[in-house]
């Protein structure tokens, strides 16, 4: 059994419980052990933009915990992943900001050598677990379910730092969803921004950006959108009703975490993947999965 350390981040641990639970269950099914980082802190998210060194140092503290535990670190959030990757990059390359952060870590009594790989959940699923292994676990294929794969920004950009995917047209989630038996739509907004980071500053812009993503998915007849980031999920699922009010458009489309869809296809129950926790009711998608494809 392969073991990884796991950094949930404040968002996943706090409100996006369906992601935390479905991750845990899916990894268990896949025979992978995940150990939560001990005493982890907030990575700084996208809210400490005016002090880059602070974000690097806070993120590096988490990476240092993974390093001490000795397991590669899985990060399920695009923002946390981006921050931890940047910390690894800046400190390893001893850049100016990396040196300031390193000094702060040293003074706080933290030893970090940027040696442990930081991995996005999607990276581990596609490159370590692999398509064949996922296929072997599919018990109830998602036949007939049309899914829009939405990756978001920070899992693929900047590609020099977050280097496991194609920054323009990533395909890992498409491939996983196809393996699960779903019909994957050609989604032009797959790496466009949901505007989440400016929700508290300039709501109009963030709603407009999310509305474009929701709009394309609905227009192309998707039954649901698949995501791998709690910020994207909060915008597209949690805020969807407010976006509808604001833009006078109607979407009503469920937004599921990739791990929720994987769990369903692997035969887990809807409570195992916490389908009841989604804000836009998600249970209906189970009726859209055609039975003849099932085992």
């Amino acid at each position, binding site marked *: 059994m392969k073991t990884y350390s796991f950094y949930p981040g*404040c*968002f996943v*641990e*706090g*409100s996006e*419980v369906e992601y935390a639970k479905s991750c845990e269950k899916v990894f268990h099914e896949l025979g992978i052990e995940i150990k939560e980082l001990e*005493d*982890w*802190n*907030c990575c*700084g*998210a*996208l*809210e*400490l*933009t*005016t*002090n*880059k*060194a*602070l974000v690097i*140092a*806070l993120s590096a*503290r988490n990476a240092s915990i993974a390093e001490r535990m000795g397991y590669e670190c899985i990060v399920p959030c695009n923002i946390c992943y*981006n921050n931890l990757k940047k910390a690894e990059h800046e400190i390893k390359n001893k850049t*100016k*900001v990396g*040196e*300031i*952060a390193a*000094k*702060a870590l040293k*003074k*706080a*009594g*933290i030893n970090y050598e940027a040696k442990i790989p930081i991995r996005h959940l999607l990276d581990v699923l596609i490159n370590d677990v692999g398509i064949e292994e996922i296929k072997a676990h599919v018990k109830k294929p998602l036949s007939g379910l049309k899914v829009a794969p939405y990756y978001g*920004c920070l899992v693929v*950009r*900047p*590609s020099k730092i977050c280097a496991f995917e194609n*920054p323009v047209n990533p395909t890992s989630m498409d491939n996983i969803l196809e393996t699960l038996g779903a019909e994957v739509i050609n989604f032009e907004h797959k790496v*466009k*921004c949901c*505007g*989440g*980071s*400016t929700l*508290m*500053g*300039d709501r109009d*812009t*963030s709603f*407009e*950006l999310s509305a474009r993503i929701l709009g394309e998915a609905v227009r192309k007849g998707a039954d649901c959108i698949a995501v791998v980031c709690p910020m994207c999920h909060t915008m597209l699922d*949690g*805020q969807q*009703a*407010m976006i509808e009010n604001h833009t006078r458009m109607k979407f009503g489309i469920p937004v599921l975490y990739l791990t929720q869809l994987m769990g369903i296809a692997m035969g887990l129950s809807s409570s195992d993947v916490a389908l009841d*926790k989604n*804000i836009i009711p998600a249970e209906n998608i189970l009726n859209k999965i055609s039975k003849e494809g099932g085992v």
Partner: protein
Amino acid sequence: MGELDPGFKYEVMREPGGEQLKMCFSCTGCTVSCPVSEIEPMYNPRRYIHQTLVGMRDEVLGDEYLWRCVQCHSCYEYCPQDVKVTELISVLRSLSEREAKRGRVRIKNPLYMFEDAFAESVRRHGRVHESMVIAKHIWKTRGLKGLMEFMPLGKAMFFKGKISLFAKSISKRDQVQKIFDVVRGGGH
């Protein structure tokens, strides 16, 4: 228009994230790839770079639209000169924030206040107490109307167990606070 400050570009380049400024050859890739520019043309990363290079310090640091950036890193990705535009915009924001604290610039975009409250929550607990920081921010910026608008979602989240009423503090808060102190003190 204020006087040109030829030292402005060096001021920006001294900040972490601003080092690559002079690499820009004005190809406009940043603005063309920017989803915010598409909606609001007043937000224009290439123009900020150009204005910074020629020393239009007051115009840039007083520009309300700086706070519109969503940090999607499209500009960063598409820049052929590796200017790291997203980080450059953050540097301009931080300089603007410093001016605001001296009372020389007024920032209307509430994101700036949210970032302060967020940072304080992380410094105090080691993690952000999301629901409290967000609720307080909505109350402060949009008052009762804002909170009422948020109520349906807030209620749904509460009954689904998605809102924690109490902050979860980590045990080694002292390490996090030390990091804040050292970095904010300029590494000393």
